[in-house]
């Protein structure tokens, strides 16, 4: 533990554990998934997250959403009761092969992240015309 401390000019600057305190604990956000036709909508609750603090990424057909809560304490007040705490929302979803990973649209409004996913062209049902011989 002692060698984790980094010293700057005789003063202890920070430890590794302090780094994790900045992002705080991780929370799994409540999610709804709706499918209609060739559209899949993923709705994720992320209260206290500003649009610039959301990160949506796709890697190896795994979709990861991450949002850092940015709610400054009201100035001149001290907290006397708490049911929720700052931290980071994070959740990963595995994308089925039928989803086009290049066409994902993300919007954040009133602390709700909405991801619009489309099924790939290949996965869409096709009508095959039967020709008369």
């Amino acid at each position, binding site marked *: 533990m002692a060698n984790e401390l980094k010293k700057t000019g005789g003063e202890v600057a920070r430890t590794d554990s302090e780094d994790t305190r900045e992002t705080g604990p991780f929370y799994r956000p*409540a999610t709804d*998934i709706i499918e209609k036709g060739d559209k899949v909508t993923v709705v994720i609750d*992320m209260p206290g997250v500003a649009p610039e603090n959301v990160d949506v990424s796709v890697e190896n057909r795994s979709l990861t959403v991450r949002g850092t809560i940015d709610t400054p304490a*009201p100035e001149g007040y*001290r907290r006397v009761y*708490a*049911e*929720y705490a700052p931290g980071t929302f994070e959740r990963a979803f595995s994308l089925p092969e039928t989803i086009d990973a290049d066409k994902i649209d993300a919007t954040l409004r*009133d602390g*709700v992240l909405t991801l619009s996913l489309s099924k790939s062209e290949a996965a869409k049902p096709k009508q095959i015309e039967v020709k008369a011989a």
Partner: protein
Amino acid sequence: MLNYGQSGSQWDPFAELRQLQTQMNRMFDTGSRSSRDGSWPPVNMWLGDDSVVVTAEMPGVAQDDIDLTVRDNMVTIAGKRNPPTDDETAARHRRERPLGEFSRSIRLPLRVDPDKVEARARNGVLEIEMGRPDEERPRKIKVKSN
């Protein structure tokens, strides 16, 4: 980790259901973001010199849809959370977000003046700042020597 549709074209509704069950259990075991007694929305309270602030996490509730009532030392937050879709034909693979009407009353540590209430919503977090009535503000009394 969600494995919706992982099996490709094969859809097993029971696997999904089982998974949901485990997830629900996990949700109640660990700290989901709702208050201790399950009421919604979860709140934090902040105390100042002559005022109190209540903040509430209420994602998806637009500012206009929030109904606030302040009386004596009680504040009531009410409103409605709309479902992500009204379309009955849409398939819902996952429903975790609390929906519908809600109302929650919170007792404050001081009486507040209904004329001194300011509320603002930002990124799904509501902040209500409430001031103490003027006549109830603590007055400083100067102690004279002699």
